[in-house]
């Protein structure tokens, strides 16, 4: 059990090392001739106007909220699926009721027009 997590932990440490190595090699090999024109923001030849970090469309936020509700639901459903053999039929039906409550939430969001994009 602990050995399994040891492997995952080592993987979390080792996995970034390969890309980091791939970024260090060009520092040694690649030419470095910086120039103000070269580092300009690329917009197909047109100079960029104004700041980039500005307010953006609020609808992305709506979708993120709906996603959050469903993601939390899924996290709760995983233990339910694993313990399936120990559950009586009643437990399964309660789990499905839990899903349906969220489906009602989805229908509400749908009717409210949150899922429309304009």
């Amino acid at each position: 059990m602990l050995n399994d997590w040891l492997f995952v932990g080592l993987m979390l440490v080792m996995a970034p090392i390969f890309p980091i190595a791939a970024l260090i090699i060009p520092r040694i090999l690649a030419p470095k001739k910086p120039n103000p024109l070269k580092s300009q923001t690329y917009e197909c030849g047109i100079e960029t106007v104004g700041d980039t970090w500005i307010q953006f469309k609020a609808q992305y936020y709506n979708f993120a909220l709906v996603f959050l509700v469903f993601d939390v639901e899924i996290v709760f459903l995983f233990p339910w699926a694993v313990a399936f053999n120990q559950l009586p039929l009643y437990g399964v039906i309660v789990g499905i009721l839990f899903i349906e409550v969220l489906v009602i939430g989805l229908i509400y969001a749908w009717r409210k027009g949150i899922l429309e994009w304009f």
Partner: protein
Amino acid sequence: MADPVTFIAQWLRDYLTNLGLASEWISVIMAALGVVVLASAVLLVDIFLVWVERKVVARFQDRLGPNRLGPFGLFQPIADVIKLLIKEDITPQGADKFVYNLAPILALATVIMLWAVIPISATVAGSTINVGALYIVAVGAIGTLSIIMAGWASHNKYALLGAFRMVAQMISYEVPMVIAILIPVILAKSMTLTDIVESQSVWYIVLAPIAAIVFLIGAQAELGRAPFDLSEAESEIVAGFHIEYTGMKFGLFYAGELLHAMTFGGLFATFFLGGWRGWGAETYPILGIGYFFIKAMFMYWVIMWIKYSFPRVRIDQMLNFCWKFLTPLILTVLSITAIMDKLLTGVPYWIYVLAMLLMNLVVLYFVYRTVGSYARKERQKVADPAKVRVNFPVKASTTPTQVS
């Protein structure tokens, strides 16, 4: 001597014991060696995938593809890597340097991390943690983070637009995809990927074809491949979130994307195609590695096939398809699968399989009918627009400070 991998592992363990090391240290050394071997093997496959991708694209577009360097152009990816390594690295002005450099590292590292739990053969599996399916979902979500980091830190409007679209798409399609993973978990009653593979005496694509299709569509969207490649729509926003990346940093995004596609092929094989299972894979586990990679490469090819056959969808179509079609569909299938699995405890396995398949086919039939009538209505709208009442009029956003 049926399995060389166990043999080598046992020989190494004996050798280290003879050196007089404590058993805890032996476990740490073995795990570290395993991680290095697995990560290197995955990256080797990744370099080979560059060749596969270019060759297959070429065939789909009736071209020859790389054929100059080495036999069949096999050394082309090595030339590509050397070229990327000696390219000048440009940081755009106004970029948030730390986040800008961290994003490509995360993009590739998270995909390598996914391979920690995928069982490659009966004896070769990085880790058999009991929350394997959840680990895949969790680590896969860090990939989303790397994209928003890249788009935000580049200080480029196109990159920011691409990142927003990509994140909206990835978080939306994560919902049906993760629920599709839940169905094999219910069928196997375990989140450990090795258990899921071992319980597939009949492949789960037979028991849960709808979940398999939804998982494939979700994977396509998570990868940002056509028809869901809004984030890098060349005709609109040039290259999306990685527009400002040059040299090896772009290379890491590219390698990460290819390896991610291959990983999704492997995950599809693990969840629905029986993973390493095949004739003789139990007695000779080394065969399992071959079976696993054949299945994973086949699914990778299917993902490419879809990518090069379909045109791009619009963002509203993409979101509608996810929230108003895939999510309700997969929630329905999940509920019915759960009830049927409970009701069918104790019946012979072939009846169980047939009942599950029949249930899926019935649901598919109703979906076909519903979607068909909806499509008829939509066609009518185009043919005779005067009759149709518009629910949500399109508003043009006029403020210059707002990007969509």
